[in-house]
């Protein structure tokens, strides 16, 4: 049977080749697109978690209502107690406070409002890996009047390592405050929104500047497994409600704003797209096998006259489709894997595009990288084979149902 199917596949070489090609291209697209989209989304999630949220974020309930305004007055006076309590919760690896606020940076005649993050330098290496992102100079030190600024910001305001700037801001009580800060390092995260408009300042200096002694505006909590953030948030919320009823909120990264929601839907939308591509390409198998069955009506009638049963006839047709689809899927998956590997190691550089687009507020890196996953590759391969086999069923049924006398008359 296999031999018969194989010979039939090579009977019309050009047709089999073109059919195979369309399956191979579809599988290739599914594999590399999936790898790329997964890579981009994972990168966005990762950036979102490391730079904006942590796995779980603890906030003052009133802060949440006006978060866009960064209301310093709605802070966390019980910072020490809460971070200690969160640290003691199961699976928590780190709980550390920070203050996010707005400042005005000025150099000569240029000025720019930017986001400032008051951070604990020692633990920041475990959160944003800021220490590894410094491209010039060094990381800020606790207790020092220093800052690290983004590489694009430095370029825009003509700032260098060693420059000292006076930064202006409002304290938690609304009065204007100023502080001289020395630029000790320039960082590059490769993320537009961060590199262009963010500075990092030691937390203790920030508290001093903003009149927020021993207080922070948010606490980042990290747990062992990122995907268990929601149950972890519930556990921390329970502790908060017990110790400080009604004051604080613990929120998992998946529940932060609308981005996660959109990104999850983007995943579904792309999944739909892969299936659509595979589905459409499976029509070439359907068409090819129908043509093949139609051409061989007489021959199939003869084989049935010789005693071949309906399901054996069906099996031969499905086997032919599986041979074409199987070989094509392996080739397509290999192509797709090759492209995915290239995109995972080299990536696609969107630096120029982003510069032209101006500021966009998504935590997307400049360089898109695919992920190279055997899971994605074998899934694409499996789907290619499955769709090929399914598409062969209608023509195979037609062949099986042929009446031998009528088929022989053709």
């Amino acid at each position: 049977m296999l031999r018969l199917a194989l010979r039939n596949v090579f009977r019309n070489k050009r047709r089999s080749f073109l059919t195979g090609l369309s399956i191979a291209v579809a599988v290739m697209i599914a594999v590399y697109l999936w790898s790329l989209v997964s890579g981009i989304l994972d990168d966005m999630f990762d950036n979102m978690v490391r730079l904006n949220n942590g796995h779980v974020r603890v906030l003052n309930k009133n802060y949440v209502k006006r978060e866009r305004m960064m209301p310093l007055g709605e802070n966390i006076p019980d910072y020490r107690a809460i971070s200690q309590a969160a640290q003691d919760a199961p699976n928590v690896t780190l709980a550390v406070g920070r203050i996010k606020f707005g400042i005005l940076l000025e150099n000569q005649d240029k000025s720019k409002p930017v986001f400032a993050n008051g951070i604990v330098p020692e633990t920041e290496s475990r959160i944003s890996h800021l220490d590894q992102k410094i491209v010039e100079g060094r990381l800020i030190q606790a207790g020092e009047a220093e800052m690290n600024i983004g590489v694009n910001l430095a370029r825009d305001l003509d700032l260098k390592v060693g420059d000292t700037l006076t930064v202006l801001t409002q304290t938690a009580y609304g009065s204007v405050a100023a502080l001289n800060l020395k630029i000790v390092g320039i960082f590059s995260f490769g993320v537009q929104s961060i590199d262009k408009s963010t500075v990092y300042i030691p937390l203790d200096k920030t508290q001093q500047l903003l009149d927020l002694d021993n207080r922070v505006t948010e606490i980042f909590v990290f747990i062992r497994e990122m995907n268990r953030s929601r149950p972890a948030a519930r556990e921390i919320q329970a502790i908060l409600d017990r110790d400080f009823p009604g004051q604080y909120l613990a929120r998992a990264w998946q529940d932060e704003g609308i981005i996660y929601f959109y990104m999850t839907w983007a995943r579904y939308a792309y999944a739909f797209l892969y299936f659509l591509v595979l589905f459409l390409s499976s029509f070439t198998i359907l068409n090819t096998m129908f043509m093949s069955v139609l051409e061989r009506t007489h021959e199939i009638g003869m084989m049935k006259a010789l005693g071949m049963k309906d399901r054996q006839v069906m099996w031969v047709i499905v086997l032919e489709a599986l041979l074409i689809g199987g070989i094509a899927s392996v080739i397509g998956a290999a192509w797709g894997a090759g492209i995915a590997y290239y995109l995972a190691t080299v990536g696609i550089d969107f630096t120029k595009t982003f510069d032209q687009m101006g500021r966009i507020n998504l935590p997307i890196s400049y360089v898109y990288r695919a992920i190279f996953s055997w899971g994605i590759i074998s899934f694409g391969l499996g789907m290619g084979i499955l769709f090929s086999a399914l598409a062969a069923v209608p023509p195979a049924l037609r062949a099986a149902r042929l009446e031998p006398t009528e088929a022989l008359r053709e």
Partner: protein
Amino acid sequence: MALVKMENAVKNYKVGKVEVPALRGITLSIEKGDFAAIAGPSGSGKTTMLNLFGCLDKPTGGKVYIEEHDIITLKPDQLADVRNQHIGFIFQSFNLIPVLTAFENVEFPLILLKKHGPGTRRKKVLEMLAAVGIADLANRLPGEMSGGQQQRVAIARALVKQPDYVLADEPTANIDTKTGHEILELMRSMNEKLGTTFIFSTHDPKVMEMARRLITVRDGLVESDVRR
């Protein structure tokens, strides 16, 4: 002993909305060892009779028994089994599978039969190809053989599983007279040597002469049935 018999068999075909009678009540039995020709003009019902003998079709009325089975009661898979186990077919236009070699074409019904291992199958196929005189063409594809050679392959294919009887629908129609005569000679020698029963249709007077039993049909009825 009757291998296959018809009792008042009627077969009508629908052409559009009109029922066209092909057989109008045929009673006939084929005995073991027969070398029988069914003769008659086009449209007389020869092919329809062969289809019923071959379990390829069921009668509209009357009965057809094959090895005591009433074929009207058999399901498609059972009919396929009967064809596979008891009946050999030779077609007018040879009908070999074009992508398989002569050897593989002859082996095909044995594979469907699922009774023999590859070694036995090989032995049987080679013996049969030698018996029909084309042992040297075993590896040729049908496209690389003449009509007469292809029909020899078809005979080998029909006989290799040692069927109870072989049905041949105008086996010489698509080959020249001389080759046709050789093919008939081959069939008759197989009938004599192996005792295989042959039923074939023809409207060629020379072919009729070679038959030991001549059944003439006209307008769906048996006109005469002569043994010689």
